[in-house]
């Protein structure tokens, strides 16, 4: 049984209204499932279930009910991508029905104080927790980044528990909130040479299915970029339920291999060789033929560095007439791209910025049918994992340069 403070007891008893009472019920039930002793305060929430593709009509009504009964978020709460790009949903091809339902859901979150940034990379745009900070984040890729790269402490929050945490400012103390649960289980010695986010994504995809919900520790990776680590986490959390990984000599809780494992022996030691990298890439390419109709870059949302690379690759080039090139990012990042002159280059080449949403959290199957897309190309292992189920489209996977070439020629060539 959890020990609640007097204040928490009164919240559970309904003395502070329905939204807080219902939230406490969810959190207490969750705490009891996982054997938590008490609640702990959190300092930020990143809200999954911010898209109507996920929340649906039922989830939207649930969030609206909380807002309607004067629920108010008491910590910094950022919203994950929604189901449409608000500024140009019609041009992108989303239906009015989706737009209207999304507007309702976003309005309800905003009424409670949510920041409608609608991005999966809140750490790039103003919610960047420090090491050891307790937070309640959803969005599997953002959880992996916050836990692993930033060293903040979060479990894998689903929509309703993140909502409950935002309304009460607390979560049950279990799992990754406890230092003793943050040590590694599986050691992966990286022997393959990794170059670019597609290599890191392929490795994460391979390792995630082996790790499940355990903590993998990578050795032999030197000097990865922030975007490569972002993709590693996103891929680990797609094929598995990985919420935390360590890279020895790189991430904050892994100054040494011993520290990463907390002095314990790894349960398993594996090598990741060039042959495994090639196999992982092949398993992400679920296609026949090579004609493509849409290229997506930015899953997770692109950083300003990635947008700069895209602009460089598209300078004085043209995207093939029947092909679409999507650059997915957050609203502030697009503003910055404009300031840097990247937007002009990308749009002149025929590329399109898509903000507020992403291919996984928008109704892409519907859009693909309407626009008669035949195949998708991406440099994201996460998207290459989800697209075949979510879009029912053949999917190509390769480097940024390969994907840009595919957009220019209309053909995917490794």
């Amino acid at each position, binding site marked *: 049984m959890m020990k609640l403070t007097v204040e928490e007891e009164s919240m559970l008893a309904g003395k502070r209204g329905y939204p807080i009472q219902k939230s406490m019920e*969810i959190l207490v039930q*969750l705490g009891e499932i996982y054997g938590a002793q008490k609640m702990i305060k959190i300092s930020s929430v990143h809200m999954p279930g911010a898209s109507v593709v996920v929340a649906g009509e*039922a989830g939207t009504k649930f969030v609206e009910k909380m807002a309607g009964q004067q629920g108010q978020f008491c910590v910094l709460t950022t919203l994950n991508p929604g189901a449409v790009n608000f500024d140009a949903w019609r041009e992108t091809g989303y239906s009015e029905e989706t737009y209207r339902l999304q507007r309702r859901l976003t309005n309800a979150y905003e009424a409670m104080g949510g920041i409608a940034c609608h991005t999966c990379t809140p750490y790039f745009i103003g919610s960047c927790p420090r090491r050891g900070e307790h937070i309640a984040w959803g969005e599997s890729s953002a959880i992996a980044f916050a836990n692993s790269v930033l060293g903040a402490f979060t479990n894998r929050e689903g929509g309703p528990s993140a909502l409950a945490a935002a309304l009460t400012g607390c979560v049950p103390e279990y799992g990754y909130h406890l230092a003793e649960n943050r040590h590694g289980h599986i050691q992966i010695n990286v022997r393959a040479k990794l170059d670019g986010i597609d290599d890191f994504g392929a490795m994460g995809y391979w390792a995630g299915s082996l790790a499940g*919900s355990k903590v993998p520790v990578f050795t032999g990776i030197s000097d990865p970029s922030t975007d490569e680590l972002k993709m590693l986490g996103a891929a680990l959390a797609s094929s598995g*339920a990985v919420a935390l990984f360590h890279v020895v000599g790189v991430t904050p809780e892994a100054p040494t291999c011993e520290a990463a494992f907390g002095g314990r022996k790894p349960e398993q030691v594996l090598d990741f060789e060039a042959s495994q990298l090639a196999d992982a890439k092949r398993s992400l390419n679920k296609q026949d033929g090579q004609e493509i109709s849409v290229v997506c870059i930015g899953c997770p949302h692109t950083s300003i560095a990635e947008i700069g690379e895209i602009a460089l690759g598209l300078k004085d080039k043209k995207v093939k007439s029947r092909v679409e090139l999507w650059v997915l990012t957050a609203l502030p990042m697009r503003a910055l791209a404009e300031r840097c002159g990247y937007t002009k280059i990308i749009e002149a080449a025929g590329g399109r910025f898509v903000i507020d949403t992403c291919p996984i959290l928008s109704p892409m199957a519907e859009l693909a049918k309407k626009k008669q897309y035949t195949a998708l190309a991406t440099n994201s292992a996460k998207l290459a994992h989800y697209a075949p*189920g979510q879009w029912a489209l053949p999917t190509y996977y390769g480097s940024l340069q390969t994907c840009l070439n595919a957009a220019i020629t209309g053909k995917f060539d490794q």
Partner: protein
Amino acid sequence: MEKILRGRKVVGGKSKGVALVTTEPICFLGGVDVKTGMITEVGHPLKGKCMAGKVLVFPTGKGSTGGSYLIYEAVSNGVGPCAMINRSVEQVTAIGCIIAEVPMVDSVNPDAIEAIKDGDLVEVNADEGIITVTSA
């Protein structure tokens, strides 16, 4: 033939249905169509099967944290499982079962994935952690 398995209550309640069993983790975003209840993940052993009204037996959840609301949406659409059994429940699935009020049991002895076969009639008394299996 009837056998009794014992597990741990995750979300209380009682339910009865035909088993749908897999050795692979399930992701409720992209892996399941919440309008029809069909499993859609390419390469998943359950692809093309329907979870509506079934007792869904799988090792654990994986992938997107959107899964919680999708379980709720599937149940609201009348195509959710009537109960779930996991080896070890993962948080996103647990929260989905809490708000959708789907009885859920985990840590079953003997192992539910070994002991329960597709098509078996399964009665889940999650309050007591008791699972009664009648072989098909």
